[in-house]
C-alpha cells in the first residue's frame, strides 16, 4: 500500500516537472513583438500591403545574431511604406521540439507572407523544401550557400555579410589590448563559416600584435573552444558561461565571442568587477556592448537592414533573380546604418591610443593596401591554405577547411 502511494507521488511530481519545463525554458514574450495579425482568412488587407516573414533560430532579444536580424527587419518596416513584418523565433529542437523549419515557414505563408527570410545555416534544407513547395513565394536564406552549389530552387537567394573584416578588426582590438598575450574565442559549432571567422580573427590579431605591439607571433596565444551549437542548450552543448570562466581562470584576458548570445562579455564583466582585468569583444549585434560597457573593446556587427530593404523592394517589383550575395562593409563609413552591412562599434574599454591604431588598421583594410588573406598561410596540419604570393579568392575563404597554424583548438572533429 505504502509502495503504491510513493509511486503516485513520484508520478505526479514527474508530471509537474514536465509541465514546468515546458513553460520554463521560454523567456517572457515581448509585448512589442506581437504582430497582431488577423488570424482568420481576412483577404490580404489593403491592396498594396506586402507581408514578409522571418524564421529565427533563437529569440529576437538575444543581444546577438537573432536580434541583429530582427532589427534588420524593423529597419525595412520603417523605411519601406506598406510592408508588414511577421516572424517565428526560437525555431530549434530545444525550444520547439515538434516544429520543423518547413512548418514555421508554412505558418508565415498562411499569414500572407510573400517573402520569407530564414536565418540559420541549419535551415538550408528546410528552406529549399518549402521554396520548392511554394514557387510563388520568395526566400532569403541568410548565411547559406545552396544557390552557389546549385541546390536551391530559383525563388531562393542567399545573403551573408563579409564578417571576416569585422572579425579582423575585433582580433586587432584584442591584440592591441591584451596584457597577457592570451586571446580566447568562444566558438559555436564547427563548420566552414565558423572556421573562417576564427581564422579572420586570428589574422587580425596576429597582424596587430606584430605590427603595433612589435612582438613575435609565437608569443601570442590564441585558443578556441567550441560549445557545439549557436547558443547554450542545457545538457546538450557545453555551457558558454562555464567555458568563459575556464578561459578567465586559465589567464586569458580577452574573450572574443563567436556565439549568438552574450555570455562572453557578461562573464568578463563579472570577473573584472571581482578584481581581475578581463576584456571582451561580443559579436553580431551593434548594441551588444551594453551587457558590459566597462570591459567592451568593441563589437563587430551585422547591419541586415539595407540589404533586406533592397531585396524586399526587388521582390515586390517582381525583379527577383536567384543570387548568392556576400556583402561587405561600406569602406567610406563602415558604421553607416543605411549602406554598410558590416560595422564595428568601438567599446568604452578600448583606450584612445589603441583606438587610433585600430582606425589606422581599418583604413589599411579599406584602401586595400592590406589583405590578410595573402599567402603564405598554413592550416593547422601544415598543409597550404594560400600559397606564397597569392591571395585567397572568395570560394577558398568561404569553404575554409581548417583553422590556421598558430590557433589552438579543433579544426574539425
Amino acid at each position, binding site marked *: 500500500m505504502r509502495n503504491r502511494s510513493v509511486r503516485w507521488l513520484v*508520478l505526479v511530481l514527474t*508530471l509537474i516537472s514536465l509541465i514546468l519545463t515546458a513553460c520554463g525554458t521560454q523567456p517572457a514574450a515581448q509585448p512589442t513583438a506581437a504582430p497582431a495579425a488577423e488570424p482568420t482568412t481576412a483577404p490580404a488587407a489593403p491592396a498594396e500591403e506586402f507581408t514578409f516573414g522571418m524564421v529565427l533560430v533563437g529569440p529576437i532579444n538575444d543581444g546577438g545574431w537573432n536580434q541583429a536580424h530582427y532589427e534588420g527587419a524593423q529597419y525595412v518596416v520603417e523605411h519601406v511604406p506598406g510592408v508588414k513584418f*511577421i516572424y517565428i523565433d526560437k525555431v530549434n529542437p530545444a525550444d520547439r*521540439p*515538434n516544429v520543423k523549419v518547413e*512548418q514555421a515557414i508554412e505558418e508565415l505563408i498562411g499569414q500572407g507572407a510573400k517573402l520569407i527570410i530564414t536565418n540559420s545555416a*541549419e535551415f538550408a534544407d528546410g528552406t529549399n523544401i518549402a521554396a520548392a513547395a511554394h514557387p510563388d513565394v520568395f526566400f532569403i536564406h541568410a548565411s547559406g550557400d545552396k544557390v552557389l552549389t546549385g541546390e536551391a530552387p530559383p525563388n531562393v537567394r542567399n545573403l551573408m555579410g563579409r564578417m571576416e573584416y569585422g572579425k579582423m578588426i575585433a582580433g586587432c582590438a584584442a591584440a592591441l589590448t591584451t596584457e597577457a598575450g592570451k586571446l580566447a574565442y568562444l566558438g559555436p559549432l564547427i563548420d566552414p563559416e565558423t572556421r573562417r571567422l576564427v581564422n579572420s580573427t586570428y589574422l587580425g590579431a596576429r597582424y596587430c600584435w606584430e605590427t603595433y605591439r612589435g612582438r613575435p607571433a609565437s608569443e601570442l596565444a590564441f585558443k578556441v573552444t567550441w560549445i557545439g551549437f549557436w547558443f547554450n*542548450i542545457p545538457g546538450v552543448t557545453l555551457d558558454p558561461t562555464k567555458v568563459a570562466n575556464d578561459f578567465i581562470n586559465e589567464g586569458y584576458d580577452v574573450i572574443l565571442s563567436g556565439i549568438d548570445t552574450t555570455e562572453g562579455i557578461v562573464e568578463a564583466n563579472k570577473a573584472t568587477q571581482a578584481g581581475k582585468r578581463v576584456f571582451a569583444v561580443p559579436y553580431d549585434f551593434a548594441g551588444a556592448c551594453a551587457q558590459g560597457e566597462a570591459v567592451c573593446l568593441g563589437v563587430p556587427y551585422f547591419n541586415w537592414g539595407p540589404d533586406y530593404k533592397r531585396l524586399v523592394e526587388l521582390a515586390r517589383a517582381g525583379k527577383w533573380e536567384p543570387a548568392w550575395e556576400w556583402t561587405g562593409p561600406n569602406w567610406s563609413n563602415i558604421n553607416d546604418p543605411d549602406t554598410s552591412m558590416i560595422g564595428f562599434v568601438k567599446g568604452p574599454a578600448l583606450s584612445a591610443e589603441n583606438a587610433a591604431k585600430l582606425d589606422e588598421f581599418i583604413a589599411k583594410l579599406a584602401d586595400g593596401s592590406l589583405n590578410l588573406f595573402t599567402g603564405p598561410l598554413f592550416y593547422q596540419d601544415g598543409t597550404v591554405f594560400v600559397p606564397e604570393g597569392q591571395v585567397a579568392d572568395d570560394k577558398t575563404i568561404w569553404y575554409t577547411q581548417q583553422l590556421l597554424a598558430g590557433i589552438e583548438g579543433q579544426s574539425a*572533429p
Partner: protein
Amino acid sequence: MRTDRLKLAANLTRPLLALVAAFALTTLALLSTGVSPLEAYRLVLFGAFSTPVRLSDMIMLAAPLLLCAVGLSITFAGGLYNLGVEGQMIAGAIAAMVPLRLWPDWPPLLLWLLAGLSGAAGGALWALLIGALRRYANVSEIFAGLGMNFLASGLALYMVLGPWRRQTSASLSGTDLLPRDLWLPTIDRLRLAPAAPVIALLALAIVWWALTKTRWGLEVRAVGLNPAAAGRLGVAAFRRMAETLAACGALAGIAGMLQVVAVHHALIPNISSGIGLLGLLVALLARADPRWLLPIAVAFASFTVGSIQLPLTLGIDSAIAGVLQGALVLFALVARARVR
C-alpha cells in the same frame, strides 16, 4: 434502474469536473497574459484542422505519440510505470539509423523494414535493461527508466558529434540528411507519410486484441493487479513483466524509427522530442484503456500543432498547450484518486 442512472451520472461527473478544472486553470494562465482565451482556445483546439498541411503535421505527430501510448498501456496493464519510454524511443531511432547508414544503396523497402526491425529491437533491448535492473539490482523501474533516458540522450549526442557527424563539421543540429529515396514516401506536397499512422493503428489493434482477448493479456493484467498472487497461481510473473517492457520498448523504438525516416530524415539529439513523455500523459489520461488511446493521442497532437500559431497570431508562447495537457492529466488523476 434508478441506481444505475445515478451511477452513470456519478461516473460522468468526475471526468467532467476534471475537464472543467483543467480548462479553468489554463484560462487563468491565458488571462494572466492578457489575451482572449476564446481566441487562444480556437487555435489550440481547432487550429490543427484548419488546413491540410496542419492536419498532416498533426497526424505525423499523433502516430509516434499513439505508438508510445499504446506501448505504455501494456506496461500499465502489467503494473509497471515505464518512464524510460523516451529513452527507448531514442534507442530505437539510433538503432534504426544503423542499417540506413550501413547500406544506403539497398532497396528502400528492404531498408525501411530493416530499420523498423532494428528500431524495435533497439527499443526493446533498452527496455529490458530496465527490467534487468529491477529484477537483479532491485532498482524501481521508474528511476531506472529516468536514468536510462539520460543515457540514451547521451548516446544520441555522441553519435551526432562523433561517428555520424557531418563531413568537416561538428554541429549538434544533427547528422546529414538521409538520401531522398530513403524518406518514407509522403502524399504530394504534404509532409504526411501514410505508412506512419497505418503502423500506429495496426499496433493499437494488435495490442488491444492481445490484452483483452488472449490468455497472455489476462496473465499480464493479473500480474499488474498482484504479482505475488499471480505467481502463486502459476503465472511466470517476472517473465510477463519483462515481456510487457520489451513490447513497450519495441513500440517506442518503432516510433523513434518513424521520427528518423518520416519526420526528421536524420538523427538529431532531440529525436524523441518529448513525445514519449507526452505518450505517458496520454496513457495516464486514458487509464490505459485502449478505446481512449486514439482520441486522446489525436487531441494532444492537435493541441501541440495548433499552438504553433499562438506566438504568430496572439503574441503568446505556445507552451500553453503543455499547460492544458498537463492540467488535464493532473485533474483527471485527482478526480480518480477520489473515487478510490
